[in-house]
């Protein structure tokens, strides 16, 4: 066993034991970190591995959330089945976007705009979609909090902590396996030089589609988690472009295309944002917007001074390089 694997196992053990030491507030912070680590990982599959910039990932979160929530609320279908439906819906949506874009070789900025257009279109659509509440929001029945019901995903925050942890671990392992396999090499070949990849015999269209579909499916699960954790959904919040930006911050600041980047970025950003919230509420005035300004500054500084993110720098310093970074 090398150093990286040992470090990972220690981290996992610590995360499994952590709720024993945390109060309710800190537990909710940890849930946020794990959530953003997971969605960041999902986005990273498209952008970090295959080089397709999506600025509309909130679309998949929202669709996943609404699908599972609507099935649960209207037809009493358990979330574990609703999850599959959510994946199907998101993969279909991702395939439509991918097919429209990649068939004409739309890439870069145009592709990013297409993803935004789909997210915004869907957001406005859901605002007028009465079956799931429209602008008024969609609410899940909240039952007694201390009773753990794994089948219906109803229960106290600790249930959601372990769910989020499971998602983050599954996402991490999935991406790790992907990077080591054929898929990962094809993705990175496309990202680094599409023409060369094509010339070497990679079916560029098909593998770009796979990247979008895998990423959409992973993000759908994050949406289901979101719906059952928060119990309320508003199109204005869940599909909004600022949500999409929130999703991409962690992997960008942590390190695009690396396995640990999204995790590290999510931890740093969530702690930063919670720290700001605490400081502001202690100072006695919570001004909306201050947090976003600091996000903007962090994003700008990261892209200016550490275009590859923080993780590669740390990885080099501690000698984890081989096992955990995607590049070199």
């Amino acid at each position, binding site marked *: 066993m090398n150093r990286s694997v040992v470090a990972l196992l220690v981290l996992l053990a610590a995360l499994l034991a952590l709720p024993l030491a945390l109060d309710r507030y800190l537990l909710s912070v940890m849930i946020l970190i794990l959530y953003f680590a997971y969605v960041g990982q999902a986005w990273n599959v498209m*952008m970090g591995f295959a080089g397709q*910039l999506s*600025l509309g990932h909130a679309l998949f979160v929202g669709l996943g959330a609404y699908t599972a929530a609507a099935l649960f609320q209207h037809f009493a279908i358990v979330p574990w089945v609703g999850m599959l439906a959510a994946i199907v819906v998101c993969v279909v949506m991702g395939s439509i976007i991918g097919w*429209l*874009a990649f068939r*004409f070789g*739309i890439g*870069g*900025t*145009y592709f*990013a*705009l*297409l993803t*935004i*257009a*789909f997210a*915004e*279109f869907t957001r*406005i*659509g859901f*605002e*007028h979609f009465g079956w799931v509440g429209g602008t008024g929001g969609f609410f899940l029945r909240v039952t007694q909090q201390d009773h753990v019901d794994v089948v219906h995903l109803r229960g106290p925050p600790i249930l959601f902590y372990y769910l989020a942890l499971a998602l983050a671990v599954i996402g991490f392992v999935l991406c790790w396996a992907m990077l080591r396999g054929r898929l990962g090499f094809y993705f990175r070949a496309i990202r680094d030089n599409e023409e060369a990849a094509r010339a070497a015999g990679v079916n560029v269209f098909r593998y770009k589609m796979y990247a979008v579909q895998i990423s959409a499916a992973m993000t759908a699960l994050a949406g289901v988690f979101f719906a059952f954790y928060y119990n309320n959904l508003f199109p204005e919040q869940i599909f909004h*472009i*600022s949500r999409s*930006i929130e999703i*991409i911050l962690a992997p*960008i600041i942590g390190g695009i295309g690396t396995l640990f980047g999204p995790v590290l970025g999510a931890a740093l950003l969530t702690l930063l944002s919670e720290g700001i919230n605490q400081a502001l509420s202690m100072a006695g005035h919570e*001004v*909306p*917007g*201050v947090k*976003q*300004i600091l*996000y*903007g*500054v962090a*994003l*700008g500084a990261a*892209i*200016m001074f550490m*275009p590859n993110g923080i993780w590669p720098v740390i990885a080099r310093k501690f000698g984890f390089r081989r096992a955990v970074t995607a590049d070199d």
Partner: protein
Amino acid sequence: MPIEAIANIVISGLLTGLIYGLMALGLSVIYGVVRIVNFAHGELMAVAMYATVFAFAATGVDPLWMLVPMAFVFFGIGYILQRGVINPFIDRPEHSQFILLLAVALVVVNLLLVAFGPDARSVQVDYALDSYEIGPLLIDKVRLICAGVALVACAILFAIFRYTSFGKAIRACADNLLGAQVVGLNVEHLYALTFGLGTACVGVAGTLLSMLVDVTPGLGPAYTLLAFVIVIIGGLGSIVGALAGGVLIGVSESVAGLLITPSAKSMFSFALLILVLAFRPQGLFRAR
């Protein structure tokens, strides 16, 4: 529904669309030359709108008199933004540039939110409710004047590119960057000038639009998206395309507001964008 009512709505959409066109033209010019996608475009526009609202509240001067100073101020802002912040990113990958401007946009729009709060503000000139009656048609005076000014501004921009020597130099950079460098053009300076011209369009368009709509910080991202929709529909980098795209979106928004509900109007624009990207990605008004 009476035909006059529909005609009135189409005309009002068309006039607003010309102002949208001016805004989108700024984005298009910047992309056409500097090859940077200005993701903070609408946010700069919101800044111009707030500047107008406050200048009007403080002095009571008709915003139309502010157009020229506003154009110069925004030219300066654009020049500095390009030279100071964006220029180091010229050779970086597209997504890096995109994210940098996203960061700028995030900071600008939230500074507006912190400074002015989420409440809507507006400019009420004393002729705000006047209108011209032409036969059965009723046309808002403010809207007509603003659309006229927007057209004039577009003409001026066109003349700058066409007839001034630095306009020619800018076109040279756009056509053949290496050639422009070989003959000794100062590309960094010219890029900054272009960015300045693009943001001057935004300054003028923002001043005009603040006379027609209520100003909130949320307009920033909304107008960024709108500008993108317009230039992509019209064809990125095409002057005529930006104006025509603006008119198309202006009309489609007002008709959608009439036929469906006003809150769903931008859904229409995004649907149009998706169709154009899917079937004619080079834009409606541009050869491939």
